């Protein structure tokens, strides 16, 4: 209608054309949200418990970080085994504000009864003692300087993972570290970060981590049923936005160049593209999205501790994407949702034990073995993962539509003559 609306239309159209999965994905996600709304305690019949809503909301966040993983691995070809570090950092960044602001309210309430009004310094000390008492400190570490500001901590959600990825990526890509060496380097990064956070003097409460994150400061009157559905919606919105963002990045010429780098980076250099800049862009962008996913995840989980940044977490992430099917965005979402939900079912004791007479298979112990075997089998026999099933369905539909009359590949080959 308006002139301003004109140029954006073809872009949107092309995005949908190049990536038909976008419309499908958004439709399915919307349906899922409607279903959950109808069944949630706060908005519907209450058939789904609050903890179930939280599990679903957390799963959406895991889908978002899996999308990021798919872009950096499946499209850009960097097998990063450190993206859960960025996820964890996003969680810590928002957790600092949640913990600070809530403790501040509690401290203010308890000091209000004192005869002499407390000075700001006294309030500050009381908050510090509350938060850092468990690690034997009553001082705020320097990294908590902005913890009283929601806006600044939200900026940290983006800035901390972004900066770490930028510096790490710059050092690694500049020296042209690739392949398995790069993967090991990313593992070393997340391991180092996790070990550092485990220390009591890391400034983030050592192995206690940050807790009570499900309680939103100043919103004590709002029950968890409402909070959980709000976070569920926020997670769904973030996942939708992430899907659109990555569909845009991986389509068009950018998608072309990054897939070309994945397949033959030396050749792309001779076309004049500065390969390292592209890798750095994708690595940093996906790290930022991982951070945002983490910032939505941990308030629903309620607690974050350094174990969340352990190397194994990032390996699981790669396993989800591999099982779901890398190199296609919906594959990552399917993999993360399917495997993480299945995982909590098995490890949560949901799966019945199998009595073999001589031995009882307890899934809480054997689930990891099952996951490992599935991973190996997928990698060997179904490299397209669960997402590959969509290809099978599409191929069947296409066959039914076209019949046997169209030219097959052999017919096309016969037409290839010498260029005229």
């Amino acid at each position: 209608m308006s002139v301003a609306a004109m140029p954006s239309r073809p872009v949107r159209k092309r995005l949908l054309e190049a990536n038909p999965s976008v419309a499908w994905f958004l439709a399915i996600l919307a349906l899922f949200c409607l279903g959950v709304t109808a069944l949630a305690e706060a908005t519907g019949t209450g058939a789904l418990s609050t903890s179930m809503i939280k599990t679903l909301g957390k799963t959406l966040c895991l889908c978002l970080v899996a999308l990021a993983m798919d872009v950096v691995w499946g499209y850009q070809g960097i097998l990063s085994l450190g993206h859960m570090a960025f996820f964890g950092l996003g969680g810590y960044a928002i957790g600092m504000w949640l913990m600070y602001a809530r403790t501040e309210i509690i401290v203010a309430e308890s000091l209000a009864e004192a005869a002499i009004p407390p000075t700001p310094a006294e309030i500050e000390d009381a908050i510090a003692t509350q938060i850092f008492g468990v690690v034997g400190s009553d001082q705020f570490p320097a990294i908590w300087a902005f913890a009283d500001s929601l806006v600044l901590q939200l900026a940290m959600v983006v800035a901390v993972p972004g900066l770490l990825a930028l510096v790490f990526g710059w050092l690694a890509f500049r020296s042209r570290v690739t392949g398995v060496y790069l993967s090991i380097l990313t593992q070393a990064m997340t391991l180092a970060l996790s070990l550092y956070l485990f220390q009591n003097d890391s400034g983030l409460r050592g192995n206690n981590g940050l807790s009570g994150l499900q309680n939103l400061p100043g919103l004590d009157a709002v029950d968890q049923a409402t909070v959980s559905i709000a976070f569920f919606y926020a997670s769904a919105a973030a996942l939708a936005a992430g899907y659109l963002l990555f569909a845009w990045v991986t389509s068009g010429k950018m998608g072309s160049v990054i897939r070309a780098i994945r397949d033959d980076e030396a050749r792309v250099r001779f076309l004049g593209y500065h390969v390292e800049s592209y890798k750095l862009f994708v690595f940093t962008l996906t790290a930022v999205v991982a951070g945002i996913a983490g910032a939505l995840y941990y308030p629903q989980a309620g607690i974050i501790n350094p174990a969340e940044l352990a190397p194994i977490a990032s390996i699981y992430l790669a396993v989800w994407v591999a099982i779901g099917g890398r190199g296609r965005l919906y594959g990552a979402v399917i993999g993360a949702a399917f495997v993480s939900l299945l995982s909590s079912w098995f490890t949560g004791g949901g799966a019945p034990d199998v009595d073999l007479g001589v031995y009882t298979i307890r899934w809480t112990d054997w689930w990891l073995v099952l996951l490992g075997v599935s991973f190996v089998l997928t990698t060997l026999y179904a490299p397209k993962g669960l997402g590959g099933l969509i290809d099978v369905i599409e191929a069947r539909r296409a066959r039914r539509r076209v019949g046997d009359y169209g030219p097959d590949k052999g017919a096309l080959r016969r037409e290839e003559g010498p260029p005229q």
Partner: protein
Amino acid sequence: MTTLLEVSGVSVTFDGFRAIDNLSIQIGEPELRAVIGPNGAGKTTFMDIVTGKTRPDTGRVTWGERSISLLGLSESAIAREGIGRKFQKPTVFEAQSVRDNLAMSLRNDRAPWKVLVWRETEADAARIAEVAEEIGLTAHLARPAGELSHGQKQWLEIGMLLAQEPRLLLVDEPAAGMTPAEREHTTDLLKRIAATRAVVVVEHDMEFVRRLGCKVTVLHEGSVLAEGSIDHVTADRQVIDVYLGR
């Protein structure tokens, strides 16, 4: 004809083996130059040095009116300076369509943020159509490059080179795996391009080189053995001994 590329006194050693030995070559603009020599003479390594893939131990490589040194530049920066390269083994992006392969090579801004918001203009579309016509792949634009025949991949790679509009084209054994008709078309095309640009062609096939009708440089053990017209070099005693007389 002014000098566009000057390689002087360049040497490269791989694990003690001297692949390029005090090599000096000048290429003018416009010029068509054929480089011949037996296997292992250092022809591909010469291209590796010019395009920044291999750093020489000694010597200078200068480029353009201002004689800037290419030795400090990265591969991508050298390509952006206007040096395009076709590899001996055709390397196209097989998973992507012919059209995407060409679009990626077009002479547009290569910075990530520019590429992110890039949208094909009419000029771009016209250029892709023109190149596709030139390389005879108009009917195959939508096909994945991996489905093309060997000869067609060679053509696509030449097309990607054309789309870049470089000032200097380095073409490594373009006619390998081509039919006689395709070879003839290749010589015509190279000659046409060389009317306005510098083109260096490495080729084994003497007939092919003869048809190019240009100055020939014979490489042997990493340095220039002879240089001149095809008749001049084929009459050269040393050339006959090491190369033609085998």
